[in-house]
């Protein structure tokens, strides 16, 4: 079995996105925005002569659970939930609060903020290129329960497309954060990042052809198992990311079911994975049958590549299978035998000694 754990770990170091506490710039951006929102909400509500609601913020997304990777397009993505201490029963229009947020941040960046269905998006640019964006999902409470509700809808959506959706951002964070411990947790994080990088490399970025990161993450929480292998040389057990990733990929592949599409008269591999928290919806629901089928095929290719890499004893050969085709050029390839050692140093020579039969 190829021992390319070191290469996997180097790859991980190269793609890993540091958390807020390690990434001062992003942390500052977040804090500026949250301060500005607090201040803005106070001003707005005072202008409207209403009681100023208290606000809470919640880190969401890959930053919050420490599963981020450095984006291919350098468009960093921060998710910061804004929780209004208000009741949905008093706010029948779910977009009203999002518009307030949008207005507060109107002149904050060159690119105007945008109200999307699940959030308000602030885009920061660097030399006219998007440098990162901050997604701000907006939540509200209810008079009748302890749940949070996500403000869904755009500014000019029909009334039907504006609603308060049951959500549990904290629960989701906890679910992911608490799924593994210690070394298993470290490997889990690495393996999820490998999957995300693979997704960036192997899928077209347009539309919904990429499986959503949250989908991969939720599936990994469910399916990942910690793998170590015995290193004969050192005589010790050590983490086996290749084995763990391969195991996850094949388990995920097995979650697909073959579904007949009567309109297209064709079978597709499809997958459903429900959120483990409210609203328990299917995380892959936005993908079409075709896209899911292609997701399946790509998983299959990845599984084959990992199996092939595993079968090579030469680390150069093993890494060449994976890099750059599946994981991009950040995955290191150790030098080849030919590059390191001068060849033609030996050939077989018939001699009486080698002719003897036993």
């Amino acid at each position, binding site marked *: 079995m190829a021992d390319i754990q070191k290469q996997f770990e180097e790859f991980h170091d190269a793609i890993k996105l540091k958390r807020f506490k390690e990434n001062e710039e992003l942390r500052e951006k977040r804090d500026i925005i949250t301060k500005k929102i607090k201040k803005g909400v106070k001003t707005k509500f005072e202008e409207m002569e209403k009681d100023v609601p208290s606000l809470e913020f919640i880190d969401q997304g890959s930053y919050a659970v420490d599963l981020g990777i450095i984006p291919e397009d350098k468009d960093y993505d921060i998710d910061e939930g804004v929780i209004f201490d208000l009741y949905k029963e008093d706010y029948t229009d779910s977009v009203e609060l999002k518009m307030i947020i949008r207005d507060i941040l109107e002149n904050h960046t060159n690119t105007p903020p945008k109200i999307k269905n699940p959030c308000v998006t602030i885009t920061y640019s660097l030399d006219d290129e998007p440098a990162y964006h901050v997604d701000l999902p907006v939540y509200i409470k209810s008079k009748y329960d302890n749940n949070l509700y996500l403000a869904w809808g755009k500014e000019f959506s029909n009334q039907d497309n504006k609603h308060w959706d049951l959500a549990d951002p904290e629960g989701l964070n906890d679910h992911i954060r608490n799924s593994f411990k210690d070394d298993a947790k470290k490997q889990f994080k690495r393996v999820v990042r490998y999957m995300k990088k693979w997704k960036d490399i192997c899928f077209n970025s347009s539309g919904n052809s990429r499986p959503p990161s949250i989908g991969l993450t939720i599936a990994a929480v469910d399916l990942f198992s910690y793998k170590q292998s015995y290193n004969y040389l050192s005589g010790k057990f050590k983490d086996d990311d290749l084995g763990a990733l391969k195991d996850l990929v094949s388990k995920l592949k097995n979650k697909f079911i073959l579904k007949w599409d009567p309109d297209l008269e064709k079978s597709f591999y499809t997958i459903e994975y429900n959120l483990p928290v409210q609203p328990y919806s299917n995380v892959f629901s936005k993908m079409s049958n075709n896209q899911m089928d292609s997701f399946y095929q790509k998983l299959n290719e990845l599984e084959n590549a990992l199996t092939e890499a595993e079968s090579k004893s030469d*680390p150069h050969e093993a890494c060449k299978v994976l890099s750059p085709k599946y994981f991009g050029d950040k995955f290191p390839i150790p030098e080849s035998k030919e590059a390191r050692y001068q060849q033609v140093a030996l050939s077989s020579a018939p001699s009486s000694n080698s002719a003897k039969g036993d």
Partner: protein
Amino acid sequence: MNIDFQELLQEKEYLDKVTEVESYNYELLFELRNGYQIPLTITFSPLFPAQLPVVHINEKYHNIPDIPHVMSSGLVCFLDKEGVIWSDIPERILDFVFDRVERVLISNSPQMEYHREFSYYFGTLEKTEPVFSVYTPEDEPKEISVLAMGGKPFAFLTDDVESRSLLSKLLNANINSYNLDKAYYIPLDYTYKGKVPQFDRFWSNGEITNIIRDHISDDTLLKIAKFSMNKKRYFYLLRIPLLTGDQAIIGLWYERVNHSLSKKVIPLIDDSIVDDFVVTPLFVFRNDDTTLIERGGGIKKPLNVLLVGCGSVGSDLLFMLARSGIKHFTLIDDDKMEIENSYRHFLGMNKSIERKPKVKLLKEEFENRYPNVQIQAIENEVLDTIENGEIELNDFDLILVAIGDPNIERSLNKLILESSTPAIFTWVEAYGIGGHALVVNNGEKGCYECLIDSELRLYSSFAGKSDVPFIKNMNGCAGSFTPYGSIDSMETALLASRLVLRLLDNDIKGNPLVSWKGSSKVFEESGFLTSDRYNQPKDILNQDDYEYINRSCKVCSNLKDVAY
């Protein structure tokens, strides 16, 4: 060559912290291409680069891993040196050495590697004892015997006359049934996938019990259950199917150490008494039918060969064929071993003093050297022997004729063609100009008679026509050195031996003539002329020749091929 080894090593980027321990001996860190750094020692030979350096894993800083080709001392066996030639440029040798060392250290599927070299690793066990086996392994468990001397096993065998006499010959001592102890042969039913014992790591008694139980069928277990005894020592011969598809044969010697234990048991499979015995692994040297054939070069069925003529060519032929695995020979020759021709003869000079018949001396010599070989010796002239019914040509699988007398060979040819046994005639020419071998009676036309033309010249001859017999200078003796005699007869026997093996392998069509051609220098200096055939190229002469076949040969043309 004066080489600065320190500098040589330091120039390699994959080596680090090169330190001279003493002259020729260095410590260093070797970085494998997967990033693993392993401390090694390298010891150069003063004969470097003609001799390769020796590489060890440095025990001071690293454990000795349990992987193939790494010995318990840490020695990395990176190359089986036999049959390879390496560069004589020091920089390149280092690259090649570390390439090989790396290959050992990152090699795939260790278990398979171990299994491929099961015997080798088993032989490295510290307390292993060697033992012979003349028992040919079968597919069923079986009670067999072991010859033990002073409690120590010496050889596994079956208690029958044949095996006992074979072993008696091997040991040069008489072996009777009462010298033998019981032993049990057990072929495991299922492929063993586990670790191969080596160095100081033999299976524990409990492990053995588990291995046996896990690798036999219920049926086999029932059969083994009958092997229960109340003895001080127990001997087992095991056949183990390996991952490679091969089968290893090993022996186990159980010696009871709990002297209060006294009941019928089978320590091999009884895990309740594992601590009552000490087990010694036995490294089995097989001398049974299967192994001898495998090593000899592929003669599979027991063959009965008639060898007519036991002079220098005949005796060398016998020697080569016995070493190729043929075990049954009948020798016919009426000559005695004389001092004059002893130089060229296989038996050598010391055997000629007694003036004994060659067939008798050869029988003694060969049965002594190769206990599996059985020889019937007939001291008589061949035509007479056949005529008086002492032998029946149809009883043989092959007849070899190395008499060197064309007149007798011509007559013998006729008799052979009347039988159904194929034959090979072989003879050597004088002065080292060459030798020949001819297949006859192998279906189709062509026989010894075809070689002879109306002027009584042999088609095959390398010597030109001469009325003077070429025989005189063939007789080298102690007084006069004959430059070619012995080598020529050997070369001829070799030519004939290869033909025999091809014939037995069904690799010969019809009845070809093959020849080898030597130098004509001495021959011509002695005033003789070579034939036209001699002028053909060596390689052509060495190929199967069917040109000699005489379609109207009075011996073979109307005997065979009638059906066509």
